[in-house]
């Protein structure tokens, strides 16, 4: 791969829309982080893999958790190890570099070739987390204060950030990102997705399952609407049990695979039960 920005056109296994391609290419050309948002199960995380694959670059992943701090992504100074080593006289304690461990972001800067860095579910961390990353993502460099060394990215990594919108991200952070919102797949795309996961599935079952699925999604009283992965699981269960006909009524088979909340199950039973359909 040359260092000049190459165009992303999706891959064989990752179906991407025109808007998504434009967003990825903007991020590549302008060398800005790409922020991807969308409902769970719309393939936000897979996008990074697809981009890495199509650019032929290595993918580094940083899974953000509620306890993650921005510093963890750059480097961690293992003080406790050093303290113990000094106590028990193991190793060269004076060489502080031995106790600096690079985080995913630090590693992507230090890497010799350009890499794709996925910062997954950035909104899981504390509200201040994205702000702490602003400078590093902007300048693509940081300083290890313990050793007084600068880590400067030789090649700006392609940064892809996903968010489930659990927390509002700060404006200053948003301004620096290229934004893309992944739509929930429409029926046509969903049929292709189901086809990828369950090749050779009976067509009438696919048709019926999709119909039920979108009817449920349009049912406004649900607390949690089923998403792609739930549909795929549900069809797997249907297939395993040899079900050939599904219809949205009170004895819909394995509804628990689609709806995970008790209130939702009750609401559906109430609205679609006993054959009388009430429009939701």
């Amino acid at each position, binding site marked *: 791969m040359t260092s000049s920005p190459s165009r992303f056109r999706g891959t064989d296994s990752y179906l991407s829309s025109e808007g998504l391609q434009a967003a990825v290419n903007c991020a590549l050309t302008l060398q800005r982080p790409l922020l991807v948002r969308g409902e769970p199960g719309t393939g936000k995380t897979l996008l990074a893999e697809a981009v890495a694959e199509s650019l032929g670059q290595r993918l580094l992943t940083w899974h953000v958790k509620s306890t993650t701090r921005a510093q963890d992504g750059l480097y961690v100074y293992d*003080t406790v190890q050093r303290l113990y080593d000094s106590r028990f006289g193991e190793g060269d304690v004076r060489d502080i570099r031995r106790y600096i461990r690079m985080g995913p972001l630090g590693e992507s800067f230090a890497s010799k070739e350009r890499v794709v860095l996925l910062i997954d579910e950035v909104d899981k961390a504390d509200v201040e987390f994205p702000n702490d990353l602003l400078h590093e993502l902007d300048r693509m460099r940081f300083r290890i204060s313990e050793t007084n060394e600068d880590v400067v990215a030789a090649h700006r990594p392609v940064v892809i950030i996903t968010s489930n919108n659990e927390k509002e991200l700060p404006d200053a952070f948003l301004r620096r990102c290229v934004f893309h919102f992944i*739509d929930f797949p429409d029926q046509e795309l969903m049929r292709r997705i189901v086809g990828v996961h369950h090749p050779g599935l009976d067509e009438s079952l696919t048709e019926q399952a999709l119909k039920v699925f979108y009817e449920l999604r349009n049912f406004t009283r649900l607390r949690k609407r089923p998403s792609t992965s739930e549909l795929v699981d549900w069809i797997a269960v249907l297939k395993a049990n040899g079900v050939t006909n599904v219809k949205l009524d009170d004895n819909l088979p394995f509804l628990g695979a689609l709806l995970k909340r008790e209130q939702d199950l009750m609401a559906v039973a109430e609205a679609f039960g006993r054959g009388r359909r009430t429009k939701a």
Partner: protein
Amino acid sequence: MFLPFLYELRRRGVPVGAQEAVALAGALKAGLHDSSLDGFYHVARALLVHAETHLDAFDQAFLAHFKGMEGAGQQLKDELLEWLKEARERRELTPEERALLEHFDVEELEKLFQQRLEEQTERHDGGKKWIGTGGASPFGHSGNPREGFRVGGEGAEGGGGRMAMKIAGARRYQGYRGDVVLDTRQMAVALRKLRAFAREGVADELDVEGSIAATAKNAGELEVVTRPPRRPNTRVVLLMDVGGSMDPYAHLVSRLFSVAKQATHFKELRTYYFHNCVYGRVFDSPYLVGGISVPDLLAQVGRHHKLVVVGDALMAPYELTMRTNSEGRYDPTEGKEGLVWLMELARHFERSAWLNPEPPQTWRGNTIQAVKNVFDMFPLTLEGLGEAVAHLTKGRMVRGRR
């Protein structure tokens, strides 16, 4: 060339600034839009919009700007009339539709169209009269009379840009607008901002800096220091109006309640119900039983609790002045007026907010206005909730400001 478009976006509440303009210029210079309007739509959307709440506004701005409804009026009009003349020869029209067309005299139509174009100040979808999309008016597109009399679209962009217009016109992101009433997840997001942390409880987290300092003081002998972990420290009192005029909003308010209950980032959440106005007592259930008297409540909860009241504040004026005692019974001599009870609540807490499901336009000249003088009031929409939360998380209010 695209600068007026940016101002159009700003006018519609999409916060774009110099940074976005520079980024867009850079992308266009690099040819990312493939010199097509479709490409421009996608590139501009990726760079100018930062949240899905603005996608709908972006689509609208894009339509308004590039459809030339305001800009290229003359050209547009000519095209429209061209189309109209053609329309009579169109084969795909049913006899009924053709009959309908015969109804309209071209000249008359032209007059009508111009007149409406002048009257109309903004984009319009659905409906029967205005020029826009999806309606039954003879003007606009995707309407009932077959393809409608398409405004803009094909000719205007010279063949290109059809997709972009279609996408923008579909307004698929309407559901994500920030100013529509909330769904549970969005509410949860908004409430999450209320959290604050404090270190309390069992010390089971390693304090690295502390350990180093202690070890150094201890002449190099390892000394491990621990500290309590950070825990949420927000306490909330939620009061909710039930029954009567609040019935239309029952579903909405119950969602807010369930979200607040599920929120794990509150150290304490107390929820109470009242009807119309607080009369000395708030209740445990929506059936107005159980509960606690207001003086007891104020004794139990500190000033640092955040008070959130949800109600429409609409009632008969006498209900604000009715005197009741702390048991909630009518007591014309010893009791306090409803409004006074509200004031006591407002005065006790350092931060409080009133969420009102009634649209803000209706907040004048009725009991809402009186209540609004006591509490800071916010509409019960995503934006309003966000503002209320921001208001609640600020420091203390100036005491006795009212």
